[in-house]
């Protein structure tokens, strides 16, 4: 077992009286593909949004990425440069072309030259199958294409970790496959991936480990076959029953 890249200990998050995360402890290994599944409101999105501090968390909680503590200040810039994120609603920058979307962060954060950034961006767009649309604006692309651009944009920073927050939930069904295909290819490249998803087929096929969350806690974790074929917990069984048998 390699040393963990992400260490999460006693992660607590509350919204007023509501406890969204009840002291989560979780280590994620370098190169691991971790899928987080669970019902809506179980805290799975909140969990991954804490890893890059889009969601501030309670004092006493601790997250480190590659040994760097996740907390406001200069450390956070370093963490965010190493942690890419793909959102449910794509969040591409609508006033920039697809190419500029992908080039921006390497230029601004990595201080890369325009020419190098453009070369990298075109390579990445090629990899996700969007090279022809490089000079279009996001609104001219389909949802699936936009999400593939968003993946390229995250990859342009050459992150150690990629967080996916329900990347296919806002897509029309016929576009889910093209995004999952890109993610499957990525999983083979050794980048650490944390994927919040409702795509059980993807989780079973691609994940090294599956995490089942409910009520702001990790109920069960294991290999895909442990979770999907032989869940130990009642709540896991009920959830899988509800999403798989229909």
């Amino acid at each position, binding site marked *: 077992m390699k040393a963990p890249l992400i260490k999460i200990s006693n992660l607590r998050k509350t919204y007023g009286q509501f406890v969204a995360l009840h002291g989560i402890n979780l280590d994620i290994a370098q190169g691991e593909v971790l899928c987080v599944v669970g019902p809506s409101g179980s805290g799975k999105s909140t969990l991954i949004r804490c890893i*890059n501090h889009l969601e501030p968390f309670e004092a006493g909680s601790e997250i480190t990425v590659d040994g760097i503590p996740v907390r406001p200040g200069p450390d956070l810039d370093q963490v965010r440069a190493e942690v890419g994120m793909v959102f449910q609603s794509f969040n591409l920058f609508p006033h920039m072309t697809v190419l500029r979307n992908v080039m921006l962060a390497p230029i601004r954060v990595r201080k890369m030259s325009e020419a190098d950034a453009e070369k990298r961006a075109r390579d990445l767009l090629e990899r996700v199958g969007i090279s022809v649309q490089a000079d279009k604006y996001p609104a001219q692309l389909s949802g699936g294409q936009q999400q593939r651009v968003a993946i390229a*944009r995250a990859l342009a920073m050459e992150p150690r970790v990629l967080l996916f927050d329900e990347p296919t939930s806002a897509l029309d069904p016929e576009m889910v496959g093209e995004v999952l295909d890109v993610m499957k290819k990525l999983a083979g490249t050794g980048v650490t991936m944390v994927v919040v998803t409702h795509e059980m087929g993807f989780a079973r096929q691609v994940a090294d480990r599956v995490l089942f969350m409910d009520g702001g806690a990790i109920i069960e974790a294991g290999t895909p076959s442990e979770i999907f074929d032989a869940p130990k917990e009642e709540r896991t069984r009920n959830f899988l029953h509800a999403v798989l048998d229909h």
Partner: protein
Amino acid sequence: MDLFSTFFNIPVLMQSLPQLMNGLLVTIGIGATSIIAGLIGGLFLAVLRLYAGPVVTGLVRAYIDVFRSIPLLVLLIIVYYALPFVGIRLSPFFSAVTALTLVSAAYTAEIFRAGIEAIPKGQFEASAALGLSNRYIMTDIILPQAIRIVIPPLTNNCINVLKDTALASVVAMPDLLKQATQAQALSANPTPLIGAAVIYLILLLPMVRYVAHLEKRFSRGRS
């Protein structure tokens, strides 16, 4: 004496026209200076109001409320006639620019704030997640999108500032209105006043039409 030679006396108009044009230049000078200073000040205030700590935010909000409430004429008279008592003596030009800028900045700040707040949260999150600093999030992502939203209300504000420059005539500023009243007194004929009114209309009507056009275009784009 018929109506036409009273209000539209061509010889009087031709005679006063150079004076009116000088006035127009002064009006545009005061207006443009105040608009630019107000834009910079307003953007600065809007960002402070949104992202500074609670104390600064409170101060900025108080500033915005006070300068949106105070009548511009009252402010202008205070700046020109009252401040000299504490040793601050501003020329008529800078008195007018100061008063107009203070008020314009307050309105502009509210316009920018609304524009920034209209940008979806996902844009802030996506840019933060990429590691962009707050400065780049603003200059590269948020403001370019907010500008589109704020151009119609900002243009409206420009119209108001340009109209309000006429108040500068109260502090002996030789602006368009002041020149017109002087020319009227000199020629004992109100034609220069009508001329000034027409010049104001020529200056401002296109802007009013432009705002209407923008608002129509943006509302269509949204539906």
